[in-house]
């Protein structure tokens, strides 16, 4: 994707504020979408296969008429230590694209839930070897047919697809995961917890 050159701030002092705003409005809308797409690609530092958009922690991106970018994030868990790293990554990515005036804020409400994870995110998790949270949308596993599929009660092994799995520990390597093991292939695996 080619980033259009940044328009230098108006040098002419004779441009009236009204004219300036009218000219800037359409640019601002398209730049809003562009900035949002840029921020949406920031990977989660703990599960780098997911973007913060897949995960549902990116709540809002707003660009005002001065070009100031305001990004709003929501934490998965109250104590998620990745939030500071994500905020830094967002700033770095925007800075690299020429956006220096950036504010990253956090909101707690409405509280994050795994239901906000995109279908794409669930598939990426599975491919990465992490059993995704069972949301409403059933996740195709190992080429499962599309269409109505009964929601399985067991957690399928992300390695071999076996439903014969058990929970080893309700807490895992990060706040959002639990530790499971497959009884069929004997491999341990992480499972993204329902939350």
């Amino acid at each position, binding site marked *: 994707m080619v980033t259009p050159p940044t328009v230098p701030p108006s040098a002419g002092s004779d441009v009236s504020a009204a004219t300036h705003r009218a000219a800037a409005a359409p640019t601002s809308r398209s730049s809003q979408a562009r900035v949002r797409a840029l921020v949406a690609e920031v990977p989660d530092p703990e599960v780098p296969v997911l973007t913060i958009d897949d995960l549902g922690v990116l709540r809002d991106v707003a660009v005002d008429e001065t070009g100031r970018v305001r990004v709003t994030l929501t934490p998965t*868990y*109250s*104590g998620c230590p990745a939030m500071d790293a994500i905020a830094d990554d967002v700033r770095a990515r925007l800075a690299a694209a020429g956006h220096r005036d950036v504010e990253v804020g956090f*909101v707690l*409400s409405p509280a994050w839930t795994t239901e906000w994870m995109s279908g794409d995110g669930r598939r990426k998790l599975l491919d990465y070897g992490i059993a995704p949270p069972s949301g409403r949308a059933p996740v195709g596993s190992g080429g499962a047919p599309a269409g109505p599929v009964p929601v399985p009660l067991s957690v399928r092994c992300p390695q071999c697809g076996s439903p014969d799995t058990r929970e080893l*520990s309700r*807490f*895992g*390597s990060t*706040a959002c995961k639990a530790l499971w093991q497959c009884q069929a292939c004997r491999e341990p695996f992480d499972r993204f917890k329902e939350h």
Partner: protein
Amino acid sequence: MSPQPADVATYALRLGDDALVASHRTGEWIASAPQLEEDVALGNIALDLLGQARALLTYAGSLRTSWGEPARTEDDLAYHRDERDWLNVQLVEIGDDGDFGRCMARLLVLSAWQRELWERLQGSADATLAAVAAKAVKEVDYHRDHATQWVLRLGDGTGESHERMQRALDAVWPYVDELFERDALVDRLVDAGVAADPAGLREPVLAYVGAVIAEATLRVPETTVRHSGGRRGVHTEQLGYLLAEMQHLARSHPDARW
């Protein structure tokens, strides 16, 4: 009736101090728990509590500007207050003496209480407290489940584990009553729809904990001793040692950053 910001700040500080001190005590088990998985579990629980504490302390510190005082950051409040300025209940500060049963007895009571508290505070008239509560309720629900599993396993386990789990409950029980105390500040906030009535939490908390204790073949301790005073800054000897460890680095190297 709209609440006084100073009341809300004190209330947020009390709940934040509960979470922060509990987080520190729980974190002491990391690398000392009976299993590796338990190190991870307690680390996660401590982290949830730390996150809740950060939100609450940040809020308490920010409210000070509404009565003309400079704001205090979460770090100011965590690292630069002395013992008498801490407003946590004593339950969270008592040490475990290396006894895992004690850790679980404390976590069972604390999480059962926090579960009921945060559930109610989701509907608080204070938007920030309601937002913190909506996140925290899901987290402490998980903590309560974890403590429940261990109390059942140890209580209904071997003769040795049963006896030690009972002793742990006996040790923690004199600190339970303080969770349900009211005072004038809380009364005002309950009237304003901001706080949850602590007395109203007694029945559901004790019902939950009592059911776990019964299923674990243990008995609810009988005690006439009721420790109290944490909400007024009166603490056990143990809090001072905890703070000395927690605050040492920040006080020795002021403004140190990662």
